[in-house]
């Protein structure tokens, strides 16, 4: 019998439909893989018993003729999504014992579609980080290695690592500045951040509300489309949710890119970027041209301001969003001498260094006397960055860029150098600032045998074209490499 952890989500759904195996069998195979992979530290809270129950219920539903979009598929849930009756920690100490009485809209949609949830996946604390090293529950290890333990990227490191290691058929993730796409690039997986407003933010622990967006990490472009079709959809409980129907993205994946205008933004390069990445980018351009696309050079002149803008806007929103974790109603509480002291102790002990750093930056940029120079100016530049894209769409339909400026790096290498760490998001953060869909597709291995991804950015609400281009890229790259299974 084939190894059920090596098949794709699409393949698994076909196999379930054909009756080749049951959801219980599929789920058991993945639970076994998860249990063997504890060294990756991909899970914060495994929910194997729940998964077995859900798999059994799914098989029964299937027998009675009810088959949802994700019927019986064992998947992972980033621990930023609140899940009813299951601990939801945001990888923090402050929410370490928090069990919601409610379900996020995205996870509810997937439940309604027949998902089997294997557990809550590790992440950077409150999704703040680019290496999954800020988790209170320890770093996640990348299944790909180069003689030493490597980071899986972040913040959705648990999701990326689990999908790359075959622990689940796909996983949810969230992306505020690159947290889906950069880990996908580091782990040889596909990750898409859809248009801002496609997925409801209801029930997702907020980091930076105007940038946060949920999306999947998957083994293939088609799998990503299947997952996103289930996750997305209008939700009146989120005022920023878009009232748009969800198109047939799965169908878009195989379509021809003949005549598609692919923009290549000349600003997407930074000092010290490995030449291999430049070369791969050029390779990607050639692949698209060979597939019939028209290549257009475009300019996004404000790109260099994207990262500074992001590190003003995101911490500003975070400083306010995280104010609710005060030890008064739920979560960790450390009693002090008086109210102010209790706040201080609770939040000092409950938040990790990176979270505290961002709360302080955010508080600073919103303070009287600094607001205009930082927050207000950043918002103005953010508008300019969005305008850059709007202008680019006059001459192209999608943009092709590298996903990240490096391959996965060793655990501990950048954790004490925040600026180096922040540079990881330099190519992904623009799509968040402009609210655009962006996907990372694994394209090649570097000289050290580590995966590198290419990014496709599309127009708002035009995920269909993004999937089409990503599918063409995936086909041309023919990336089939898998990490050696050293962890089991």
């Amino acid at each position, binding site marked *: 019998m084939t190894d059920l952890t090596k098949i794709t989500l699409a393949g698994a759904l076909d196999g379930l439909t054909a009756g080749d195996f049951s959801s219980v069998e599929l789920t058991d195979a993945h639970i076994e893989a998860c249990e063997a992979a504890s060294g990756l530290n991909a899970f914060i809270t495994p929910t194997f018993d729940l998964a077995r129950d859900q798999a059994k219920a799914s098989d029964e539903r299937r027998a009675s003729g009810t088959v949802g979009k994700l019927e019986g598929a064992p998947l992972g849930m980033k621990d930023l999504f609140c899940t009813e009756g299951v601990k939801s920690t945001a990888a923090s100490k402050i929410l370490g014992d928090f069990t919601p009485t409610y379900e996020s809209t995205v996870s509810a949609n997937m439940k309604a579609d027949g998902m089997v949830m294997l557990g809550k996946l590790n992440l950077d604390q409150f999704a703040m980080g680019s290496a999954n090293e800020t988790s209170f529950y320890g770093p996640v290890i990348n299944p790909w290695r180069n003689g030493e333990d490597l980071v899986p990227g972040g913040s959705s490191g648990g999701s990326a690592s689990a999908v790359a290691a075959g622990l689940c058929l796909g996983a949810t993730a969230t992306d505020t500045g690159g947290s889906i796409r950069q880990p996908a690039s580091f782990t040889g997986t596909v990750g898409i951040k859809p248009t801002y407003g496609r997925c409801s933010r209801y029930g997702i622990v907020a980091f930076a509300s105007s940038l946060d967006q949920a999306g999947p990490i998957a083994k293939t472009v088609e799998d990503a489309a299947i997952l996103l079709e289930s996750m997305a959809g209008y939700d009146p409980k989120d005022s920023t949710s878009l009232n748009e129907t969800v198109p047939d993205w799965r169908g878009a994946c195989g379509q021809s890119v003949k005549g598609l205008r692919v923009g290549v933004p000349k600003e997407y390069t930074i000092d010290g970027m490995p030449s291999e990445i430049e070369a791969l980018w050029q390779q990607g351009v050639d692949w698209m041209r060979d597939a019939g696309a028209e290549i257009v050079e475009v300019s996004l002149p404000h790109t260099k301001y994207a990262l500074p803008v992001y590190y003003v806007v995101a911490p500003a929103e975070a400083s306010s969003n995280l104010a609710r974790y005060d030890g008064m109603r739920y979560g960790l509480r450390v009693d002090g001498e008086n109210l102010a002291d209790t706040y201080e102790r609770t939040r000092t002990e409950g938040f990790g260094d990176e979270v505290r750093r961002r709360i302080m930056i955010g*508080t600073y940029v919103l303070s009287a006397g600094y607001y205009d120079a930082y927050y207000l100016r950043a918002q103005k530049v953010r508008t300019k960055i969005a305008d850059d894209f709007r202008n680019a769409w006059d001459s192209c339909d999608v943009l092709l860029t590298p996903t990240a400026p490096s391959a996965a790096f060793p655990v501990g290498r950048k954790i004490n150098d925040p600026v180096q760490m922040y540079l990881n998001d330099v190519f992904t953060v623009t799509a968040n600032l402009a609210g655009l869909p962006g996907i990372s597709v694994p394209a090649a291995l570097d000289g050290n045998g580590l995966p590198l991804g290419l990014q496709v950015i599309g127009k708002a609400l035009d995920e269909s074209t993004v999937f089409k281009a990503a599918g063409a890229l995936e086909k041309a790259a023919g990336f089939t490499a898998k990490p050696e299974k050293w962890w089991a």
Partner: protein
Amino acid sequence: MTFIAPRVADKKDWLSGETGDWELIIGLEVHAQVASKAKLFSGAPTEFGAEPNTQVSLVDAGLPGMLPVVNEFCVEQAVRTGLGLNAQINKFSRFDRKNYFYVDLPQGYQISQFEFPVVGEGEIEITPEGGEPVSVGIERLHLEQDAGKSIHDLSPDETYVDLNRSGVALMEIVSKPDMRSAAEASAYVDALRQIVRALGTCDGDMEKGNLRADVNVSVRRPGGELGTRCEIKNVNSLRFIRQAIHYEARRHIEILEAGGSIDQETRLFDNVKGETRTMRSKEDAHDYRYFPDPDLLPLELTDDFIAKIKADLPELPEARKARFVEQYGVPAYDAGVLTADKATGDYFEAVATGRDAKIASNWMMGELFGALNNAETDLADSPISADALGGLIDRIADKTISGKIAKDVFGKMFAGEGTADEIIERDGLKQVTDMGAIEGFVDEVIAANPDQVEKAKQNPKLLGFFVGQVMKKSQGKANPQAVNELLRQKLGL
């Protein structure tokens, strides 16, 4: 913010100090709770007096991942109120976060409208008691959510928090510093109260805290440079507003005349001692770090939305008052009383329509309000409906009963004994207008009092005695005019 305060108070409102006269400058921020069954950003109910923490949704309690969704009904009420204040309605407005930590603020921020309020400048006319009408400018009206309630006196070492109010919709109505006396400030709040009640956008109940005021007070030499102001927080009755202003003004004058200066600060009014005291100084003021709430889209109102609300606007107290004077010919003072709230005005119009409006007004202002007052009740619980009072007035008009008898009938109606017609019928109170019958009574009285008849011829004032006797004989039912005429004739007066 620079406030321009061109109007100089009437001399009678000047306050005299040791070193000369002073003028009061007052501006108010009134918080009016939107009359809505649900909160501003959550579906939770807003019932008053419910058990603590029973009107709280996940959003109101600030749970992780919870998002606000604006309650359109509340927006509509804010626009309605704005139109009632003759104010500019801003088609674009935005919600901002006001960040601070406190136990009764679950999110760690209050959602308010800082930079772009839904309603801009407006103006209302007020009439302070015993004074001339004054126009008061409205600076803005914005929507914001209320915080929960901290209860410090249930335990010696713990604070209890009730989140029932957390997220309740408030309209903050900010006036310009256009008031020059405590009477004006109190009249302004009263006028606002009447307007929101007439519009139905707030119940105006100050006792429940559904309408409360932050009072900004400063003093200056009449017409001179503006002084430093102090803000007195959360004053919740008209009387307390007046008391707080009087106290605060005197405090300022004393400090200034002793050569001191006023510290800009936030103060509390102690309604037991009748004093204000420091709550926090300017140095302790929070840095609220306002910024646009990224969870909410800006409010964008269409012309159609505003036009629909406008078309549905009821007549407001000030306009109604003017109409009562014009249409019914009642004095301005009476018109003011009759339009103090919508129900009173409606009652009056029901009574006055098709009748002598002055008589209707007199009966309401005299007998009815007097009786309601004695019974310690109000018009809403009046035992006499507008129709019933109208019925009584009709019987006076058609001379079925005299005004004097009518007062007795009114008393019986108020006691719940029936309609005017029923009581007149039951007690046989119908006025006698049959001249023959009246003549009979007159003859009888004259015959029975020969001495008095002689005296009356010398002293015509004795006519009253005869009228009284005749009325007595007729049990009050004889038409007094007819009695008078007949007596004069027969006594030769």
